[in-house]
């Protein structure tokens, strides 16, 4: 199977490429990236420096030619933070439905958090997930393993076995690792495999009972608040432990300005810490909670305008290197509850790129290459995903084609995710993925 994507603006920050080029794909790999109309481009070549007559006439007879004129061709997006709910809550999401949602959202690889039922703390669960992912045949799924057995925060999970079973990072996501000693040992242990820890930073004693950001809006609504300090206290602890143990640390869903400050300072002194921000924390504030819509309830909570400003600055200056969705499907019946009783979390796979393009690219805060770095290149690097996040010859042919100017409305009936818990339904967005290619196969295309 040969695929030729022609006429698009190819943005491949890992290789310093940003030009109108053709991409040729063969047998699931990138074969060549070259000058439009030329069969033989050399990646990264100078703009006017065509090299005609170079070896193979490889664009001959592609099985499919994709005209990407006016579109952007980028390495497939990677979402480091997804909840797929299978095994256990297949009514909310399955690996198949989550894969379809990812494909529609322009993601070619996703990492699934281990808080399923049972949790992913054994090789058999990891293998089960990978098997179902293969069967679904849509996107690459990389499991994240538990830090502690049963996510109970007491004993280390068998991290070595989980690495062997394909886990690329470790987290008790959904729950913080409250015990500092356990976290310290997890970090020391993880250094043996050079895998990153992806902590959900939250001091449970400070957040207990809270359902939204503790701030001006919670003061008015009488909902119990979760102070920013609940997150930042743990970010601080984990940074200090990472500094002490040398472990690689990636802070999940950073939401508070205080956390940003701690991460920035730590990076400046060389601590191996990175962080991610979600589209919703970059776009919505706690003002959205007025009206008590439970699709504005997530953990960490939507914070104040100052926090959005800090997160955006951090995303621009590279303090926060990754945009991840924290896609968290929940059944309608569970979300249609009183605010205190509804579960935390919203879906995000199908709206992430559109939201980022609308709110950060069209407002000129991020360039397209910066977005590609934060949604593909950096996740691949942090998780050491080989042959991902790049369009270099020999890399996996995971490619996203996006139309930065396509206007669309988020429609509930079009969502591929089994759950519909999004606060963005009805939003008009500008920019969307139009084709998703995984291992050289088109797994999603917009008509």
């Amino acid at each position, binding site marked *: 199977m040969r695929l030729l994507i022609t006429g698009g603006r190819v943005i491949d920050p890992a290789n310093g490429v940003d030009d109108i080029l053709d991409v040729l794909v063969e047998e699931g790999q990138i074969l060549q990236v070259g000058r439009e109309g030329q069969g033989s481009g050399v990646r990264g070549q100078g703009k006017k420096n065509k090299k005609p007559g170079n070896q193979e006439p490889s664009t001959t007879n592609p099985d499919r030619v994709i005209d990407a004129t006016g579109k952007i061709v980028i390495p497939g997006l990677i979402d480091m933070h997804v909840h797929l709910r299978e095994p256990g809550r297949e009514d909310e999401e399955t690996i198949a439905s989550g894969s379809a949602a990812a494909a529609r959202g322009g993601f070619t690889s996703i990492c699934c958090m281990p808080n399923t039922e049972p949790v992913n703390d054994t090789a058999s669960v990891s293998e089960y997930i990978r098997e179902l992912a293969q069967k679904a045949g849509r996107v690459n799924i990389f499991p994240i393993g538990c830090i502690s057995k049963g996510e109970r925060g007491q004993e280390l999970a068998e991290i070595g076995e989980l690495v062997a079973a394909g886990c690329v990072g470790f987290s008790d996501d959904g729950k913080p690792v409250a015990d500092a000693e356990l976290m310290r040992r997890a970090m020391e242990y993880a250094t043996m495999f050079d895998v990153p820890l992806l902590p959900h930073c939250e001091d449970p004693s400070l957040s207990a009972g809270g359902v939204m950001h*503790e*701030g*001006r*809006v919670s*003061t*008015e*609504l*009488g*909902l*119990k*608040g979760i102070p920013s300090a609940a997150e930042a206290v743990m970010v601080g602890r984990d940074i200090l432990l990472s500094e002490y143990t040398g472990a690689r640390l990636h802070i999940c869903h950073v939401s508070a300005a205080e956390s940003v400050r701690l991460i920035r300072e730590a990076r400046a002194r060389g601590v191996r810490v990175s962080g991610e921000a979600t589209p919703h924390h970059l776009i919505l504030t706690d003002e959205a909670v007025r*009206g*008590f819509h439970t699709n504005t309830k997530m953990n960490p909570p939507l914070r104040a305008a100052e926090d959005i400003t800090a997160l955006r600055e951090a995303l621009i200056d590279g303090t926060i290197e990754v945009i991840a969705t924290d896609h968290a499907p929940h059944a309608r*019946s569970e979300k*249609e*509850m*009183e*605010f*205190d*009783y509804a579960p935390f979390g919203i879906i995000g796979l199908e709206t992430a790129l559109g939201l980022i393009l609308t709110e950060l690219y069209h407002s000129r805060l991020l360039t397209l290459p910066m977005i590609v770095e934060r949604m593909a290149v950096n996740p691949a690097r942090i998780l050491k995903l080989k042959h991902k996040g790049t369009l270099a010859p020999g890399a996996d042919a995971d490619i996203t084609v996006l139309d930065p100017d396509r206007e669309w409305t988020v429609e509930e009936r079009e969502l591929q995710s089994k759950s519909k818990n999004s606060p963005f339904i009805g939003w008009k967005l500008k920019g969307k993925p139009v084709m998703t290619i995984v291992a050289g196969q088109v797994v999603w295309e917009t008509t």
Partner: protein
Amino acid sequence: MTLKRKDLLTIRELEPEEIFLILETADSMKEIASREIKKVPALRGKTVINLFYEPSTRTRTSFEIAGKWLSADVVNISTSASSVTKGESLLDTGKTLQAMHPDVVVIRHPVPGAPKILADRLQASIINAGDGAHEHPTQALLDLFTIRERLGRLEGLKVAIVGDISHSRVARSNIQAMRKVGIEVRVAGPATLLPRFPEQLGVEATTDVEDAIADADVIMMLRIQRERHGPTMLPSLREYSRLFGLTVERVKKAKEGVLIMHPGPINRGVEIAPEVADGPYSLILDQVTNGVAIRMGLLYLLTGGQRTER
């Protein structure tokens, strides 16, 4: 003139004119309480359901009497919110009730915003009888009514609200209501029980109770609900009483004739000394009496009644 709304969920959403309309309608209702036969046919054929997910004596009774004096059929449903998670959801309960065609559903619930879930989906008028720490609009209305009845005016008055402001729906609704009618509000309480952003509520906050009550026309004491906020907020009721309790000595330092209010039930000797609660300037029982009038007025207005001329 009628209320141009289906529900009463918050004071926040009310226009000052609507507040005055409710107060005036309640005025005309109050006289019914002094009649030998306490019944008028205004709500004959109407059904009022009291749906209480939290224990309540005075508010539920007050709504029940209000409905009955207006000749409505009143049904009480008491349930515990903890059963919600295993049993029927609030939404399903609401749909079930709707199928019986009530005209008004009065709901008390421990979670902020819960009444809105019903209001958004039911045809019946929903009255919020207290939702968590969010609002308790009928309490604020009856408090305004009581102050106005005694002092003849509202605008320009100064009120101090003392106690656990941060967890209090009574405080939240009263602050809103009082500001809308031109009352200046100060709140006082221990630092652990003051809202983090009092300016967001439009009030000044202090931890100095004597300073807060110094030039107040009315002091409103709130009930200390230790069971609500857990053991980390206050070292003891004894210390609370010593630092914030409304004692005879403290009242003496306030304005001569300052009025004393409390939404009840009171913890005698904790937030308020018995001599103060039972003293000549206490409006605590007037608040209870007026609660019925306010709820009659509100039921009447929400079911489409025209304002009766006095």
